């Protein structure tokens, strides 16, 4: 009876879901045109006004968690809570205009049938309207505002994701009508993941791996690729070189769907930031909450974990920083964090220390590979 209740809860929770559509350029242009027409209609109406922009709230207060009906995957999504940007608030007037300016820029990009990166967009806006745009972060935030306003994905707006991620190991990639790329032959640098989501969507994937290993840091990825760990343990290595970008998440999700039997194991530092990265791959994020929910995967935590602390010398432990504690608090307060992760986090905070994966090199450079192999064989992942 309780199961039935739970499953119907999960079903209904999807009605709260707010999402950004992945739509072709013509439809995005149409949405922008509707926005302009609505603005003008209200401006020239008998009771003229300057309309406010309703944006889906990207704050933790609007975050909900959903659990899949048939799978074990759960994800974060945003619900129908709005905040407004208005011209009439003197301190926020510029933020209001920024949204329109990015819309104008995206519209022009779509009309010209081009694609730009966020960096390129930043420079263009900086030159065009220096009074309004001062930093990349501001531009990225404003882009998310436009996504929240028009409810279409960033990629649909013509903005390419950065190509930050790398993949290596027992994977064959083929773009349609192109040559096959063998990711095990890419050397220690691996194969760069394209920022073009359309392209990633069309990739043909083939593998004989048994595991997918998600690595937090670039240095560790390089070490493992150089040591060809994927030949000892048949696996695919993937990294976003830090905080997961949409393209890497997209590809990981594709891999998980294409090869559902492959467990996805994460190798992160033992600190709140590492756990946060794992959770982003696992559940999605608020910042891109309207899109990221699609790419949530069932990622398991391989290491480093609390019970690995015995393997490392005490000198390798470093005190937690203020930022780490803030992240820990934020994670603790999220409802999606499962109990065993919570326990790990509690230990981190209690000890007030963190450990990087590199600490394992104490035992020799080859130790990392052995550590991973042992853990996988023991199925020691949560």
């Amino acid at each position, binding site marked *: 009876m309780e199961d039935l209740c739970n499953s119907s809860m999960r079903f209904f929770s999807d009605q709260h879901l707010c999402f950004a559509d992945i739509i072709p350029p013509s439809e995005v242009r149409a949405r922008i045109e509707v926005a302009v027409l609505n603005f003008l209609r209200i401006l020239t109406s008998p009771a003229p006004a*300057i309309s406010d922009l309703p944006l889906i709230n990207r704050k933790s207060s609007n975050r909900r968690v959903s659990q899949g009906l048939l799978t074990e995957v759960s994800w974060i999504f945003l619900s129908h809570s709005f905040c407004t940007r208005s011209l009439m608030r003197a301190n926020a007037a510029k933020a209001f205009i920024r949204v329109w300016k990015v819309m*104008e820029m995206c519209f022009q990009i779509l009309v010209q049938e081009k694609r730009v990166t966020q960096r390129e967009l930043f420079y263009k806006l900086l030159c065009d309207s220096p009074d*309004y745009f001062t930093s990349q972060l501001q531009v990225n935030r404003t882009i998310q505002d436009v996504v929240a306003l028009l409810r279409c994905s960033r990629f649909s707006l013509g903005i390419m994701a950065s190509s930050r991620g790398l993949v290596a190991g027992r994977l064959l990639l083929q773009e349609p009508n192109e040559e096959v790329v063998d990711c095990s032959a890419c050397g220690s640098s691996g194969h760069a993941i394209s920022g073009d989501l359309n392209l990633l969507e069309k990739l043909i994937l083939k593998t004989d791996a048994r595991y997918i290993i998600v690595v937090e840091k670039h240095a560790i990825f390089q070490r493992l690729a150089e040591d060809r760990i994927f030949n000892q343990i048949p696996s695919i290595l993937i990294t976003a070189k830090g905080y997961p970008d949409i393209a890497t998440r997209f590809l990981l999700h594709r891999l998980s769907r294409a090869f559902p039997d492959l467990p996805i194991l994460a190798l992160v530092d033992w600190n709140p930031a590492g756990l946060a990265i794992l959770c982003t791959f696992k559940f999605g994020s608020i910042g891109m909450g309207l899109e990221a929910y699609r790419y949530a995967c069932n990622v398991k935590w391989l290491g480093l974990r609390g019970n690995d602390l015995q393997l490392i010398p005490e000198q390798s432990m470093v005190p937690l920083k203020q930022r780490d504690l803030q992240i820990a608090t934020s994670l603790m307060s999220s409802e999606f964090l499962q109990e065993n992760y919570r326990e790990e986090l509690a230990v981190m905070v209690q000890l007030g220390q963190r450990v990087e994966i590199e600490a394992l090199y104490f035992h020799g450079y080859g130790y990392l590979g052995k550590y991973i192999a042992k853990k996988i064989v023991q199925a020691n992942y949560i």
Partner: protein
Amino acid sequence: MEFASVHPICLHLISSAIQRCRLSEDLCRLSVVLKFSPNSDPLLLRISISDTGIGSCLEEFQDLKFPREAVIAEKWDGVLSVRTTSICDNEVFNYQLNLKESASARRLTRLPSNPKNGVKFSGTEVCLSISESLDVLLAEINCFFQKCLLKTFSSVFSLFTLICSLLVLQMLVLKIPNVAYELVVEHDDASGLQYENVFLANESNPLHFSASNLERLKSGFEDYILKHGNSSSKKCGSCFPSLEHLKVGSGIACCTEGLRNTELVMEAVILISEISEPTSSCFRPCGANSEVLCFKDFTPCSIPPSSVKALTSIDWRSYGLTLGSIVNQHGYALLEWEGLPPSARIDIVLHCYHNQYPNMIPSARKTQLDRNLIKKSVKLALDDLKEKHAGVLLSAHALKIRNCAPDLAKTIAGLILSSKDSSFQGECFSLLGLQSEGVGGEIVEDCIKEKIISVIEMNDRKSNQKSELAPFLFENDSLQVLEFQEEEYEEGDDGPFSPLDI
């Protein structure tokens, strides 16, 4: 003009006379006669204030006190001779009022009255005499004699000038419709009685007889400013080439006070003028400062300190004005503004009066009421100005937003013109009221900018009333009740969690 130096008794008498004339339905005359006898011993100056309004009631004199200060107080015996009659009375009553007498019973002496013999008229005449004993003068050293005489002459002359300008100001600014003013100076010297009659022409009043006091004040004040005060008889064409540059707002606040429920009225008129090129021939004493003209019971007066306080406490910033300081000089309040454009000038007139006759001498409680009334009426005048003239007195908040309007207009225009969809463009143009053919980017931009600015200005005018939420760009028909959390995103705020914003 130092009205403070004019005997407050004179001011009160003139003001009472005005009230009596106002309340009469007929045309009235107000005369001030100064009779100066330099050759008599003692030197005599007789001031007589008379009017043909309704008859005076004695209560008016009840609370008059003999003032200790003022120049004339030294030389006045405190006696007022009063002759008055109402239209329905059969006789003209004569009284003598001795203000120096402390016991109230002995203050008023009734003198024999004069019969009217059936003639119907009403009016009042109040006289006081100021004398200077010649002995006192001769007691001085001879060579100073001339000076003393001159001093007495000049004080009479200045009194004359003061009263004259007082009456002119009254007439010009207040425009009381049914009163004609007359100032007469008689002086008695060796060659006999000399008589100079200065009859102040009451300019043809374009206002209807039934126009309210406030409208009259507004019209009079406009004329006053256009003529640069009393200094010229015509409107100054070079400073004010067209009346469009003149923006006037008025406000009125009333309350009832006291045991007798007299209604206290405060009127305020604010005038903003834009002078494109101040010509050197026109004397503009104030520049970036505003002189506040004050009237009390239809008589010019100096500004009381409570009013100065009230003016300081007004929220000028919400009208886009920054008040630097208020200087109280010679009974005039001078408001010093900061950041006012050099071509702009602000003038203010305040008029406080009782709506009934007789007037009560001010009490301590009245200053509190005055303060509230001033704040209220000035605020109403400022709101009136904003209401009637778009873009004037925009609050600092609205100015900030208005500065962004050109950029918003440019962006929206850019969106319209980047589109390759001609039906979309056509619809936009028709919404804006523009022709579809050959419309340049600038025209579209200007059109949108104009509309945005007018919305900003309109919202600023309404800001004191309950603010309406602007409509949303997209209407949502989702199942959930929307929670509208208005949040400020701080500019350039990185936040502690980005990008790890789990």
